């Protein structure tokens, strides 16, 4: 029961975050919302696992947490350099 209440709160927050991701004026707003959706998905997975008495969902949540930051940084790097295959050579040649 207590997990259901927390799940409802996280779901409402996720709906609001999706609204921002859809209408955000800049790409950074959308990325911020995407990052927040990732965190919300992790918490939702954990809460759902606890509610149904199967905490094995936590492993999936851990994987999501690791993928979330990689995704955000990859998209940021793409928008900064125009490609993902850009190493650190800018630091040395400048």
């Amino acid at each position: 029961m207590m997990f259901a209440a927390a799940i409802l709160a996280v779901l409402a927050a996720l709906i609001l975050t999706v609204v921002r991701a859809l209408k955000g004026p800049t790409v950074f707003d959308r990325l911020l919302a995407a990052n927040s959706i990732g965190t919300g998905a992790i918490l939702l997975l954990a809460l759902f696992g606890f509610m149904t008495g199967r905490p094995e969902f936590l492993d999936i949540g851990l994987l999501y947490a690791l993928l979330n930051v990689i995704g955000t940084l990859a998209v940021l790097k793409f928008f900064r350099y125009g490609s993902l295959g850009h190493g650190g050579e800018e630091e040395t040649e400048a």
Partner: protein
Amino acid sequence: MSAGFFTDLLSWLLLVAGGFFFLVGAIGLNRMPDVFTRMHAVSVGDTLGAGLLVAGMALQAGPTLVTVKLFLILLVIWFTGPVATHALARAALQDKLLPLIANRSGKLVEGDPDKIALKDSSKPGKGRAQPSKR
């Protein structure tokens, strides 16, 4: 899975508080005027909300491997959230996106570029002189 009235009560309190803070972060994401203030609002939900929710779940799980995994997730969230937000703010500033600042009459205007600009051209060897290939 749990035992004791007070454990359940404390768990309720933590879970409701965590859900509340996560919701507040999402509302702030919609209400704030520009991307920098929105980052500020989201970080509330991502640190305090996630922390309280995980604490509430850990109380229900007791001292088991499940609790270890829960706190591992929390550790990952707490370390990667600020890193992602920092990278996001840096990228936004480099993209010539400036924070909004209230002027004397209280209206929000775009801030002074000289005061907020990134200062990494002052460091030798780390200049960003060349334009980005967009």
